């Protein structure tokens, strides 16, 4: 995959890197620039009265990191969190949040022209979270906009 990158970049303008991961049986990706680190699953402390997709909080080297269960957030059945699950730590603005996913697959370098706009389907997920689609070797990857995945903050900015 990676050896394709230079060719693609040459072919069609600026390239960007995306990190691809699996949630349930579907594949997604987010901009690699938003990703701070990837770490294994550790049990989270449950937050009372939180939205269902908020798994709780974990200790990330002294900081309190909220964990979003992407499966639940995207409308899939909740993941049975266990050792093989992975947390992608992303930063949006000053906020750092962990996204619980099934597995990280690879890093893709794509150009903007390869990104297709999502089709108009009656799926809440598609409308709210997916900013674009990517076709790769017969696979379909949905590009998530990280901002929209985060929980609405009580004290503030509506999305």
């Amino acid at each position, binding site marked *: 995959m990676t050896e394709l990158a230079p060719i693609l970049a040459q072919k069609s303008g600026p390239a960007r890197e995306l990190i691809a991961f699996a949630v349930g049986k579907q594949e997604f990706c987010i901009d690699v620039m938003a990703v701070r680190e990837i770490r294994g699953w550790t*049990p*989270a*402390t*449950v*937050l*009372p*009265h*939180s*939205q269902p997709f*908020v798994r*709780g*909080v*974990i*200790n990330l*080297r*002294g*900081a*309190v*990191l*909220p964990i979003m269960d992407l499966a639940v957030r995207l409308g899939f059945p909740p993941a049975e969190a266990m050792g093989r699950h992975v947390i992608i730590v992303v930063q949006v603005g*000053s*906020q*750092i*949040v962990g996204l619980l996913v099934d597995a990280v697959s690879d890093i893709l370098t794509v150009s903007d022209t390869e990104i297709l706009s999502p089709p108009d389907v009656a799926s809440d997920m598609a409308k709210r979270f997916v900013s674009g689609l990517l076709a790769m070797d017969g696979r379909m990857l949905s590009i998530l906009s990280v901002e929209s995945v985060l*929980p*609405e*903050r*009580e*004290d*503030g900015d*509506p*999305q």
Partner: protein
Amino acid sequence: MAASDMDALRQIFFQECEEQLSELEAGLLEIEGGSTDMEIVNAVFRAVHSVKGGAGAFALEDLVRFAHVFETVLDEVRKGRLAAAGQVVETLLRAADVLADLVRVARDGGDVDQSRIQAVSDELGSLSGTPAASAADEPEENLDDLGFMPVVVELPIFDEAPAPEEPAVLEYTISFKPHASLYANANEPIVLMRELQRLGEITVACDTQSIPLLGELDPEGAYLAWTINLKTTQSEEDVRGVFEFVDGDCDLTIAVNGEETGGPSDVDIEALLRSVREEAAEQAAQADAPIADAAPEQPDAIAAPSEPPAVAPKAEAAKSEKSGNEKSGGSEAAQPTIRVDLDRVDRLMNLVGELVINQAMLSQRLMEAGLARSTEVLSGLDEFEQLTRDIQEGVMAIRAQPVKSVFQRMPRLVREVAAATGKKVRLVTEGEGTEVDKTVIERLADPLTHMIRNAIDHGLEKPEVRVANGKREEGLVRLSATHRGGRIVIDIADDGAGINRPRVRSIAEEKGLIPTNAQLTDEETDNLIFLPGFSTASTISDISGRGVGMDVVKRSIQALGGRVSISSRPGEGSTFTLSLPLTLAVLYGMVVTVAGQTLVVPLTSIIETLKPKLSDVHAFGGEARVIELRNNFLPLIDVGRELGFRDQGADPGAGVAILVESEGGAQSALLVDGIQGQRQVVIKSLEANYGRVPGIAAATILGDGRVALILDVDAVVAGSRNGSLSAESALALAG
């Protein structure tokens, strides 16, 4: 000078202004308190002078103008021509307030109340004008005849401000030959001449004879000499004062060749003695003067010195640095200090927090691995723990600041509130040096302001009432701070009428805050004033009746992990006592288990813990339960259920009840599954990465490396009362 350098200097200027202003106010208050120490007067003068000097360098016209008028009056006081007592001190204090406002506006922008400034500067003007009028019946026109100070005609007050005590015109011949060291010390002859020009009419002749040929000219040498003829009404002492800062760096002779036309001689022994005494003080004040005068206006009367102009900015920078040093070192015998960016301290604080957590984790791991049984490991661990604690205390000490910075704002507030309410008030502060975390200090200002307002507005009686009751006309408000048992205790006491309990009660009944037949102890009645929506003033004054009341005060103190209590005696006054933690970074808590989750309950809200007997627990209404405790029924709140950790109420017999006091002093019992122990925990914000969580105050990280939540006792109790916890979270969901 680069713009960023200028910005940095500007920032330093404003920081120093803060220091000068607080020194100014402190000094004035001491004078008000009856101190006649000349040093204090000098310090006050210096403070205003420095502000003026700095403001001039940054072309802050309004500030310079006002500071100048202010300074003129202070100079009168300093010279003993104006007695600093009574009305005068009040005016000076008001002037200090205006000066502080002007500094703030210069820094943050915004508007100032011009009429207020005008009123105060008029008052100041009349003060500095008074001695002139009384000392001699010299008509004012005489001043104009002298061509007095053309620079300041735009200041209406200024014409009359430095009115001479003895309006005799003296003629001085000053010969002035700077040494190279004068330039090296960043002084400028032109500045001195401008200063002389302020005293009167001058004619300057420059002696260029000693300038060598270009080849022999040392660029840093001094070759010029001046002869200045000065006609002024000022004393020789004042003229000499201009040169005080360059004393020793020049050859200077000042000769009087005019005849005195009236008034006593000023070149008497007493004046000389005084000048010697003032010399030291003047020195520091004079140090700042050149900055002010280096402001762009160029008087055309003076021949510019043949100094290369490129030197000027450098010299100025050096000068401001120098005066800065003098200020920090010069004031008291203060210990050397450094300014540190607060962010850096906070970062260090965070790291230490992590160190504490790590240390706890390490000991726990070693325990689990059974290694801690070895004495060497054990003593190593102990030492590590001790070190960690020492470092933590050290960092907290860096953040700790004396409460002085908040207390200092109060005299002004008292003056304003006293003026607005027509009461006479004396504020006494004690324990200003008591230290507490900076964040606590910052968040203390508002509640304290409110409580002091309250003490004056509601606590103290009107002067005529006080006199009728055989009290001193002037009311007393005492603000004191002390350390007690790892907390800071702040008392706000007044010697007013005390809480009018029947009235408080009737208001509370009227507003439906308590049932009409409620049996209340005096203490409970007093605490009614903390209820939301309670306001005793029958007319809503704009001082303390702005819809927010003591309930807001209590809530903000509780948000800091503190408590408020009242003791009041009818006719003798009331005392409000605040007890606050020394830091917001750590908290002592009880670690408890609820539905498999570990929670921390802040110790400050816990009264006692008990094992409930099933026979004491009674169902009350639908699902609520109460517990009988010493003939009192308290609500028994199932924390697990309240936080949504479980649907079914826990078995009270199997758990532990924690008796807590929440907002308004109400007691309730929290039902938890078990108690793990008590410990100090490092507070971590949940809001940084997530948001507010109903029922939870913050988070912490325990020894096992897991996040534990810190319970917000007030919110849990309030939530159980009206189900607002879940309502709130529904709101959160709706986003």
